[in-house]
């Protein structure tokens, strides 16, 4: 083929293919434009902090379920307990250092306990007609109560005015006893009142300090795939439980950071009964998943499971004990989301 013809054909080919090449080039550039911001976003580290504004509200329903299963000589005994708390936290002031002052109020309660020796105790305030068993009357008086608290940038409750709420519950409890005439002594003695008030304050203080939300907020900015460690220690009647949690930021979608938690558990101070020859902690594990709003650090939902399994060797054979605690918390605000000032509309 003559050289000129080849040259001409090359020009034709180039002319023919040019639109295709341009399209490919255009699509390639477009892809880059679309992908790059996502890539940059994914690479951007975020500092998760609890940062409410005045007027922000947080509604939540928290449900804790405890299951204990004891198997001895083929016989199984189960203890099942559920405690639910619905609460609202409304911020009224924010200080320059991010310390928030809010009103924490209780609008839902659920308590269920059953076991061979316990019988069944059940109260769920979402049913306004349900009988309130005597055993849960004092905690049931949390319903409708409110307390002023202060929070830091990791949602720790650093101040809680418990005395006034304890006094109000005590007043209601006293008037209830007088009203029903249930007791021979119409009014409790001052010693009884002091004891009950101290007990109420102790339980409320435990509630305030036992949430451990600071593990959701690492010290440094984190990216997807980054991990951080938190150690939590719980003590109850000499039994000390150490929970070592490794949290990992696994996903960031639509302004929600998803944190996966895995933990190991160690127990100290466990007193082995005399009848037990040896004890083996066969399983000690913790898993959790938490969803947090990136813009203000409000937890939207969390789920966790703590599982412990022991084998106790005795002269009469092994005793197997399974202990499980499930925690589920979700926002009960509109559309299942945490309400913030930015999303609240008129009437909300």
């Amino acid at each position, binding site marked *: 083929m003559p050289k000129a013809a080849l040259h001409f054909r090359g020009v034709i080919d180039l002319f023919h293919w040019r639109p295709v090449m341009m399209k490919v080039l255009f699509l390639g550039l477009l892809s880059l434009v679309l992908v790059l911001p996502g890539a940059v976003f994914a690479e951007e580290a975020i500092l998760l902090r609890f940062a409410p504004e005045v007027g922000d509200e947080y509604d939540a329903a928290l449900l804790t379920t405890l299951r204990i299963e004891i198997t001895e000589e083929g016989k199984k005994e189960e203890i*099942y307990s559920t405690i639910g708390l619905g609460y*609202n936290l409304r911020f009224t002031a924010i200080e320059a250092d991010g310390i928030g002052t809010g009103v924490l*109020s209780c609008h*839902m309660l659920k308590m269920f306990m059953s076991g061979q*020796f316990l*019988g069944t105790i059940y109260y*769920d305030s979402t049913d*306004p007609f349900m009988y309130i068993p005597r055993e849960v009357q004092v905690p049931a008086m949390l319903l409708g109560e409110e307390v002023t608290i202060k929070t830091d940038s990791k949602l720790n409750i650093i101040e809680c005015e418990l005395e006034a709420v304890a006094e109000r519950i005590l007043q209601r409890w006293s008037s*209830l006893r007088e009203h029903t005439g249930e007791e021979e002594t119409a009014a409790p003695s001052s010693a009884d009142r002091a004891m009950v008030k101290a007990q109420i304050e102790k339980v409320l203080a435990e509630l305030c300090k036992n949430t451990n939300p600071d593990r959701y907020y690492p010290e440094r900015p984190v990216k997807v795939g980054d991990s951080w460690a938190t150690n939590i220690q719980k003590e109850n009647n000499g039994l000390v439980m150490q929970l070592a949690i490794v949290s990992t930021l696994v996903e960031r979608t639509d302004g929600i950071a998803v944190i996966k938690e895995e933990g190991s558990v160690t127990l100290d101070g466990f007193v082995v009964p005399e009848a037990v020859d040896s004890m083996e902690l066969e399983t000690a594990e913790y898993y959790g998943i938490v969803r947090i709003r990136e813009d203000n650090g409000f937890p939207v939902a969390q789920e966790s499971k703590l599982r412990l399994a022991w084998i106790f060797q005795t002269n009469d054979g092994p005793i197997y004990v399974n202990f499980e605690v499930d925690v589920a918390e979700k926002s009960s605000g509109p559309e299942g989301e945490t309400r913030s000032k930015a999303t609240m509309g008129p009437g909300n």
Partner: protein
Amino acid sequence: MKLHLRQTFNRWRRHRLWLVVCLVVVVLVGTAGAEADGVILAYNVEQGMLSHLVLRTKEEVVQEVNGQEVKREEEFLLEYEFAKQEDAEGAYVARLVSLQYREATPFQVLAYDSAAEADHAPELGFYKTLPGITAEVSVSRNALIFTCDSSTFPKDEEARSWSLRDILRLIDRDVQKQNVALICGNAFINYPDRPLPVGAVWQQPVRIVLRHGTVYNDTGTYYIDEIEEETIVLKYSSRANFISLQSLLAGELSGEVVLDRASGLPLEGKIDAVFAGEVERLGLAVPVTMKMSMEFAARF
């Protein structure tokens, strides 16, 4: 004793499916044939005609506590079978053969199905005791009386070791059985003997006083809406209120029931109810709104 009775009644109200039963029974009116100037309402139940009843109810309760609305939904699907008693005229035994229950609260959704073998949530243990319970139904010309047999409500639990608390609960339950029997036994309407044309209206007041002072007031108004060849369409409305030491709820019920002309038994129906008021909870006044929606279908 006063507290004991009040607690007992509150327990009954927790299981408000019995209120639903009452609502159904309230509209169990019928006709035995048309007259020139209307129909004469009467039951005419031949053996085998009263056989099967399915109730589907949905209830929504909204409370306001500390400015927060708390919503709870409950749904029931109840299936009753009727068997005629051999030796007694107009006497039947109604037996609850299956029950489905679902409750949804901000905490969780719980469900129970008596036909499923899967474990149910321990909170719903009460519903496990209900399938198999029976009630006596006696039918006369102008009344259908539904009487709960106190020995079968709820069904005796399986034998096991009892704690003191369980024994106390059983004693409560015994009184509860009597309350249910009392309410069901009084909630039925005696309907008029006169012929009733389309547009005819009659009323039946129902006032139930329980031993501990709780009063249920209900004046039902019945209205003949349509008279067809085989059926009659009846409209029903009522202004009712519930008064107890702990609650004052007032509201309205309204609905429509399609009756079988031959037997006087209801074929299908739908009743809606809305109650609102305040419930006292350990010294706290809680505003409450309760909406109920009930559908039923009978098979003969």
